[in-house]
């Protein structure tokens, strides 16, 4: 029952937000947003304590992988709403009716994706996220955000269409096989006797389709434009939650192919995409001028790492699932901090924001710590997952993959360090006023930073259990 509530509650709230008129109910609408986010988080917490039974005839269920992505989405959404309160108070544009409605719609869509066991339902959920996020990207209503949303829609739609074709291939692969079509549990049960050729084709098209939503290279070109132009709050949600849900899609089809013993066919493709994404990220991060576009390419890099870990198998799968959590938290943390910076100085270009440590002390410090977190420095969680993926690379007998991976990580670190440190420590412009950093804007990033730091040092019991199950489901093992 809770599973349905998780999806229905935000949808209902979104409808209400759209229904009320733009001008009058501003404060009430923000209150609803925060309330829904809080209840959603509470519901997810109860899922951890008391696991919920599948519902709607097995179409909605909270399995290990889905629960992890759901928790991540819920936590990020809650942090984003806290930030949104501060953001909307400053950006008093058109009452935020579309903004709040879009956000709630986004939460409903991502919850649907996380919980769905029916691949077509998952596809619908992802499709819904595209449409709920489009107005959010277009929030500033200027030429640049128009171009960003136009490109985002066109590329995402092409991707989603390919995913639909992939679903059709999967359905054809299942003709004449027992079990309900496209339901994950049945697919996994009868994986061995699915039609191999069609399953290959299905995997490839679903990978490209969901890969486009994830922002894997070469389908990543929409990412820098979209994250660059959308409000940082939205970019954070997209980089953290939306990419994780898209990865969930890739993970589901990988589960099926792994159950069908197609490792030798599937893994080279995943590793190929992973390394290509790392390479593209490395090339485009050096000499980057805008901090939001920099974070976008960092997101491309981490998507590459996710897929690379999946492709390596063994403990790489565990590393990948842990990395989904870590990456989501770290990306949202950084985007929210950059949001504060942009709010204070009005531009996300690196040249315009210098000497942040003195003008915005807390945000400056969080930005520098974020740099170390995102580039995988030890005290933070991302180190653990990247280190596990590295061990998997050596374990799988492909030292050259590990060497390439380390090379790209090194180049990426240099590119990011040059820019972010120049921003944080440079000589501040005389005019940069000392805007007081309101507590609403800082609660989100500080909470997320604490979570990433905690995950680097201690993984709670139930989470460890869920990670192990998810890793074994993806054809890997726990370290």
């Amino acid at each position, binding site marked *: 029952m809770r599973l349905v509530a998780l999806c229905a509650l935000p949808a209902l709230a979104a409808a209400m937000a759209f229904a009320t008129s733009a001008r009058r109910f501003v404060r009430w609408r923000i209150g609803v947003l925060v309330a829904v986010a809080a209840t959603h988080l509470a519901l997810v917490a109860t899922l951890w304590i008391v696991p919920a039974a599948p519902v709607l005839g097995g179409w909605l269920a909270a399995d290990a992988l889905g629960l992890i992505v759901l928790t991540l989405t819920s936590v990020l959404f809650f942090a984003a709403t806290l930030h949104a309160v501060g953001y909307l108070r400053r950006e008093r544009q058109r009452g935020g009716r579309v903004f709040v409605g879009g956000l709630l719609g986004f939460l409903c869509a991502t919850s649907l994706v996380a919980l769905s066991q029916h691949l077509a339902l998952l596809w619908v959920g992802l499709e819904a996220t595209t449409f709920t996020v489009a107005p959010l990207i277009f929030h500033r209503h200027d030429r640049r955000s128009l171009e960003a949303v136009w490109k985002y829609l066109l590329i995402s739609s092409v991707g989603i269409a390919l995913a639909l074709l992939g679903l059709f291939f999967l359905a054809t692969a299942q003709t004449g096989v027992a079990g309900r079509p496209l339901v994950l549990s049945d697919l996994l049960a009868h994986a061995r006797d699915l039609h191999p050729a069609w399953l290959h084709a299905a995997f490839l098209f679903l990978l490209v389709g969901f890969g486009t939503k994830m922002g894997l290279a070469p389908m990543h070109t929409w990412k820098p434009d979209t994250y660059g132009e959308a409000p940082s709050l939205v970019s954070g949600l997209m980089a953290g939650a939306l990419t994780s849900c898209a990865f969930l899609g890739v993970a589901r089809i990988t589960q099926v192919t792994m159950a069908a013993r197609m490792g030798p066919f599937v893994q080279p493709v995943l590793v190929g995409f992973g390394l290509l994404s790392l390479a593209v990220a490395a090339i485009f991060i050096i000499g980057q001028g805008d901090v939001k576009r920099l974070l976008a390419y960092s997101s491309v890099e981490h998507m590459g790492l996710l897929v690379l870990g999946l492709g390596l198998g063994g403990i790489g799968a565990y590393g990948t699932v842990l990395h989904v959590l870590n990456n989501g938290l770290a990306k949202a943390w950084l985007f929210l901090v950059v949001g504060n910076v942009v709010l204070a100085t009005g531009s996300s270009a690196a040249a315009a924001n210098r000497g942040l440590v003195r003008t915005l002390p807390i945000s400056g410090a969080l930005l520098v710590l974020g740099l170390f977190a995102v580039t995988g420095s030890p005290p933070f969680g991302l180190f653990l997952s990247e280190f596990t993926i590295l061990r998997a690379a050596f374990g799988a007998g492909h030292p050259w993959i590990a060497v390439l991976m380390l090379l790209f990580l090194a180049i990426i670190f240099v590119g990011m360090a040059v820019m972010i440190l120049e921003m944080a420590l440079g000589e501040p412009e005389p005019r940069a006023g000392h805007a007081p950093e309101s507590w609403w804007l800082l609660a989100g990033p500080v909470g997320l930073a604490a979570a990433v730091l905690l995950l680097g*040092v201690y993984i709670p019991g139930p989470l460890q259990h869920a990670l192990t199950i998810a890793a074994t489901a993806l054809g890997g093992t726990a370290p």
Partner: protein
Amino acid sequence: MTLFVAGISLILLAGLTVAVFGRHPSFGQAAFRFLVGLGCALGAIPALAVLAGRGASDVRIAGAVPGGEWVFGIDALSAVFLVAIFVVGAACALYGVAYSGHDQGRRPVSGAHALVALLVAALALVVTARAVVPFLIAWEVMAVVGYLTIVFEPERAEVRRGGLLYLVATHTGTLALFALFAVWGNGAIDLTFASLAAHPPVSAAAIAVVLWLALVGFGVKAGIVPLHFWLPEAHAAAPSHISAIMSGLVIKMGIYGLMRVIVLLVSPPIWFGWVLLALGAISGILGVIWALAQHDLKRLLAFHSVENIGIILLGLGAGVLGVAYGHPVMATLGFAGAAFHALNHALFKSLLFLGAGSVAHATGTRDIERLGGLAKRMPRTATTFLIGSVAIVGLPPLNGFLSEWLVYRSLFQGGIITGGARFAVVAAVALALIGGLALACFVKVMAVVFLGLPRDTAAAEARESVPGITRPLAGLAGACIIIGLLPAFVLPSVFRAGSLLAGGLPPDMMPLIAAANAPVTAFVLALAAGIAVAWLVLRVLSRGRRARADVDTWACGYPLPPTARMQYTASSFAAPLLTLFRPLAGVSVKRTSHSFTTHVVDPVLAEFMLPGWRGVRHVADRIRRMQRGRISLQLAYVVAAVIVLLIYLVFRGGAT
């Protein structure tokens, strides 16, 4: 171990209190001084106990993170480094409080003290970590906090550049360490050092990969020559007490890492010994040549760190050769020499850096060409700097001589035994050359900075630093003298560390090695006594006739007294030597019709690293031009991906 944990928590508490009481610094800094001092003392006790022979129990924390449980322990090797960390750490922390006192107005100083405390704690944890994950966490915290302490004055562009170079170098080094432990951890059950030792890499190729990764990963941190490019930049940028901790302790972690790998690998291959020996000789000789060419006091001392790391590597190389060729005495002597020199270098290098800080603090400049005659104006700093110089050059009465003597003995031991290790003797010649050049360099520094006439008004008006600064100087100088004059106390514990590295020594060897140490104690004491007696005798003899001390320096009868400009400057003093090492020295001479200027540059950084990075940037820029932003091009990428996959499907797909 409980004392050690108490010590660490006290140090962290000190950092916390000084940060919290930022607004009224007087109480905050007093509490900081007391807590750091107490913390370091408590922490040092278990280390000294282990050095004296009593073992210390391990601290085990259940592993909540993949990679097994977290283990911390102190063995002889960690103890040597722990002693260095706590002594130098305490001195630098106290120095830092007094040193950055004058920055009070310009920037929040309490944060910097807290970071120093955190750095000392991280260093202690690196040395006692016995599992991969806590080791790497402590390692990176040390690196990151190190960076944050370096950029103490971020408004200066060279500080930011130095900090960035340091950060990039250490991070790439850490990535090599990730690879090292990933490769090594492959076969092991969990990631504790014990299980790594139990499952070492077997095939020669795996061992080679592990050792080269260790050399790169730890070499970047230690500053071995090709990877040392960040060291002078970072030291010139950092405040002096941070440079002291960096040079004294942080780069020693690179050496500690190499030693820990040797301990875990039990029988390192022969080629590794020769590589270490070669790297040591190269680092030593190039390090001291580049130091000779410097005008900036801190850069000069930084290059000397590279030289001393070279000497330590010679010891390590001799030790590894001893183990590989099966000569336990040579191995123990080599490792003991390396560990002892690491400890000594931590002491006198931090003393020299703090002295340089005191000079920079008093005169406001680090360019030695504008100093001179400071001995009269800053007697305590000058004397302690002289003691540091005598120690670093390895002259008898002080500790530098003892550790170099151990390294020499290990190389001689290799010489007189027949077998492959005989050629190690040539390294002794390299060590002698390093010693000679070091003597030239430190005579130059002492003379140009402290003796003669002040070359600039800044030097002329310099006044002795506040006691808060000179007291740590005196403490460290005292430590150098005590170790120098009373080696009998230090040598046994250093040999315990050496034998641990050499894979345990047959029981009858220890007394034999210790026996050879007794006469050296006598010799050093006799020498010191001899100088004292002779000084008294001369004093008594000339008491009768009062010496005239008001006359000008003899200028061969030239009527005018010599002025400050007639004195030898640093570059003129080093010119004959540098012309002999012309291509290596990195000195570019610019001659025009009316001017002659020399510009000193670090050859590795200028000719390899920066052009390399510009090349990567250039390639990236050309590729980036592809993303011109046209939508149809971006869609074409998606289509291309689909087409490639379809072709892959056609060839690899099919019936499998």
